[in-house]
């Protein structure tokens, strides 16, 4: 019965090669021919998957990322990013919506992902896995760390409680001191014609981030869009390259 199904055009059009892979070559082709599996190495050295060596922190980070994506999409069905509704919707999510734990899953998952990403970086550093030929993948990893932290930062504002508002006020105030682009940073005065300064409180990089001079409606909406669409989109591109480069750079590094 199953063999008959394997012979149909439907099956063969989806799974190239056909049939149960028997030889080593056929097993390899299964991985190479799948858009999802091909990011992953075809073969792993036995000692490279030792938990003692890898800590599995990279894999865990990705797993948590998937959990965050799914729980985040679920939260979007109830959460409205406006000053009027944001806080109440969070309370509603926790107290009225079935499985109110979803919001906690997202929140604690976010904390966990930051931790696992840091530990992954620590492991990669301590095992020397950043060395050639993996130096480019290390650089991509640093970008991924930054994106993880930015996702965490933008998500922090969304509950719109006192903690969130003041934490983001403090955090975004640091952007004032950005060289050249922040209105209180070094070199901000260079971009001026006579008395007219182009980098002001109403036109610097902090303004672009929070959409106003003060924390308000615009900041909430901008952070929401960045958190749900902008940053996840960018991080997924970098993650794809990151995983693919592991394979291209010779697989997971092995213990010396």
């Amino acid at each position, binding site marked *: 019965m199953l063999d008959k199904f394997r012979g149909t055009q439907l099956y063969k059009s989806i799974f190239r090669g056909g049939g149960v892979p028997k030889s080593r070559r056929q097993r390899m082709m299964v991985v190479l021919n799948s858009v999802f599996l091909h990011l992953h190495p075809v073969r792993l050295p036995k000692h490279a998957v030792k938990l003692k060596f890898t800590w599995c922190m990279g894999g865990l980070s990705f797993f948590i990322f998937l959990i965050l994506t799914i729980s985040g999409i679920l939260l979007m069905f109830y959460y409205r990013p406006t000053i009027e509704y944001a806080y109440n919707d969070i309370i509603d999510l926790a107290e009225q919506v079935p499985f109110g734990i979803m919001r906690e899953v997202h929140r604690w998952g976010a904390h966990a992902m930051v931790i696992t990403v840091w530990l992954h970086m620590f492991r990669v550093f301590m095992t020397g896995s950043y060395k050639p030929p993996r130096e480019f993948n290390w650089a991509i990893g640093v970008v991924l760390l930054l994106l993880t932290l930015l996702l965490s930062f933008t998500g922090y504002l969304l509950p719109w409680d006192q903690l969130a508002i003041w934490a983001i006020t*403090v955090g975004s105030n640091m952007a004032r001191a950005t060289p050249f682009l922040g209105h209180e940073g070094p070199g901000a005065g260079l971009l001026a014609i006579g008395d007219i300064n182009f980098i002001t409180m109403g036109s610097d990089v902090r303004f*672009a981030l929070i*959409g106003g001079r*003060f924390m308000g409606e615009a900041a909430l909406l901008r952070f929401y869009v960045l958190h749900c669409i902008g940053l996840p989109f960018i991080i997924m591109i970098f993650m794809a390259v990151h995983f693919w480069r592991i394979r291209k750079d010779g697989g997971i590094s092995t213990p010396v």
Partner: protein
Amino acid sequence: MAETISKESATKDPGRRPPAALGKADSSDQITRRSFFSWLSIGWLAFVAATGGFFTMMLRFFFPNVLFEPVQTFRAGYPDDYTVGEVDLRWKNKYGVWIVRNDAGIYVLSTTCTHLGCTPNWLSSEQKFKCPCHGSGFFKTGINFEGPAPRPLERFKIVLADDGQIIVDKTRKFQQEKGQWNDPEAFLKV
């Protein structure tokens, strides 16, 4: 019937046109190597310009022309509305300023803590501004005396309008550590 016509035209057609391979076509409608490259560069330049224009638009898009925020310059009533020796809280939420009157006159303090930008509270019993975030404390003058705040609160421009009302201009700020509090516009003598 239709079949015979199509057969006829199929046999006649190749005879009418000269074969292209012989190179006898008019040179004016032929693309030369040189004109190909000039069209190619024009095409690329147009592409780069359009892309650059789009990214400029994208950047400008993030800076709206109208902000739905409180105005930066506002009328704060008459000097007699403010009691000597009191810190006035009526504009704190809307405009983010305290108006303080002492024996000599009136000054406007910013409600933004100079540490990390939170909003301190005025504690009248202790006669000090106390920031809830990290505990910075400021005297009624705005001078910092405790906690992590590195410098005094900022003051804003205060002048009298023709009708005798106070005008506060938040776009102009005065910092004590730069000696700007002595500026005539930083303090309204009453």
